[in-house]
């Protein structure tokens, strides 16, 4: 089975898993008393946010290893992870406002998660733009690695600065969308969703990686060969 096919199968399984999560979340998970049905957006929003961040860290790690090992596979992986990370960021940035409107009365709020994800989104876009702007594969891989590493190192600072800034503004007291203590059925739904998103990440990255591999083979241009 080729890499593309493996990727497709994983994605199919992931999508089926997601469908199951949908059913469970919508029909079999209790409605949260204070927030109402809109709270269920949480089951999609948070796993997507976690993977948006994880994907960026993986881009950075791949970058570090690439600079030392010069293995083009690492660069292809980074490219794939960045694209998938952007997709997940889009999910967070669209479901966030849809959740925010009924809960906080406003479409956008500079809360920690949305703000961090917005910055991550900009990092991803910048990363992909730089990749698109460099012709030579070796140069592109190196530049991307540098930017990816910087992006990964920025993540803790994003969290720190957003956290410090946030403590100025009182958070909604009753409605805390990321309440740490969930009843077990809600927690289970959330975990299933996390599994689904993990599978989606793996399936998507595998396919995107295969695409990159096919393109490199065609053009005969692989980075990392001096």
């Amino acid at each position, binding site marked *: 089975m080729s890499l593309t096919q493996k990727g497709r199968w994983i994605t199919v399984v992931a999508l089926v898993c997601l469908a199951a999560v949908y059913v469970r979340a919508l029909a079999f998970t209790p409605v949260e008393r204070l927030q109402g049905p809109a709270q269920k957006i949480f089951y999609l929003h948070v796993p997507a946010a976690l993977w948006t961040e994880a994907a960026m860290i993986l881009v950075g790690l791949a970058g570090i290893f690439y600079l030392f090992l010069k293995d083009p596979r690492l660069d292809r992986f980074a490219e794939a992870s960045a694209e998938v990370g952007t997709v997940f960021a889009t999910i967070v940035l669209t479901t966030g406002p849809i959740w925010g409107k009924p809960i906080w009365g406003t479409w956008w709020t500079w809360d920690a998660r949305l703000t961090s994800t917005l*910055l991550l989104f*900009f990092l991803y876009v910048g990363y992909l733009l*730089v990749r698109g702007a460099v012709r030579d594969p070796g140069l592109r891989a190196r530049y991307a690695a540098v930017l990816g*590493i910087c992006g990964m190192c920025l993540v803790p600072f994003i969290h720190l600065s957003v956290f410090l800034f946030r403590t100025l503004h009182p958070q909604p007291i009753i409605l805390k969308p990321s309440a740490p203590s969930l009843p077990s059925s809600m927690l289970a739904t959330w975990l299933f969703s996390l599994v689904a998103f993990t599978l989606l990440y793996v399936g998507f990255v595998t396919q995107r990686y295969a695409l990159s591999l096919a393109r490199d083979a065609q053009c005969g241009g692989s980075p990392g060969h001096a």
Partner: protein
Amino acid sequence: MGELLAQAWTVARKDLVLEFRTRTALVSAVVFTALVLTVFNFGRDPTAVPTIDLAPTILWVTFTFAAMLALNRAFQLELENQALEGLLVSPLSRTSLYWGKLIANLVFVGVVEAVGLPLFVLFFDVPVGRVLLPLIGVIVLATLGFVAVGTLFSALVIRTRFAELLLVVILLPFLVPPLIGAVQVTARLLGGRPLSESVGYLKLLAAYDIVFVSLASFLFRFTVDE
């Protein structure tokens, strides 16, 4: 270490001599800063919002623009004079090359800020007297962070298409954490709050500087080597 500094200073001096010989870029940057401050005046209603509330924002947006201008001009110089190739062939280490550029950029931005700050105080009648020293301290900390990352990215975009646009797009997300720190500390200083209230943000700025100056200095070689 001494060798590093000596080489760095050679690089910096070359840039600065070029800069001060023509003075065009410097004068333009200073005039630009003054214009931005002027425009800010027309963008507000002094009867509705007290100037002091907007002051930190005005100052830092202006300084961010000034830093971006400085960085743009930095690599323009290289591009025009094909000087980069010359430098790379020379026996200078990549790290001292970075430090040289960093110093030159810092001097340039420093001069612009040294003119911009008094203008800001004048135009907006900002009471900086008693907090001048801490304010300068914050300005130094934040500017170092901006310019450290900016110097690295300037080198990165040199061989890309649409370099100036790309520089702005990839750099701005990196400026957000130090910007948050700088604005918050400035606001507290101007509001007469004790320095102890700004400690968290100051630590953020310091940590950012330490991490990104080291990181940029290390990664610089990957943006210039073949």
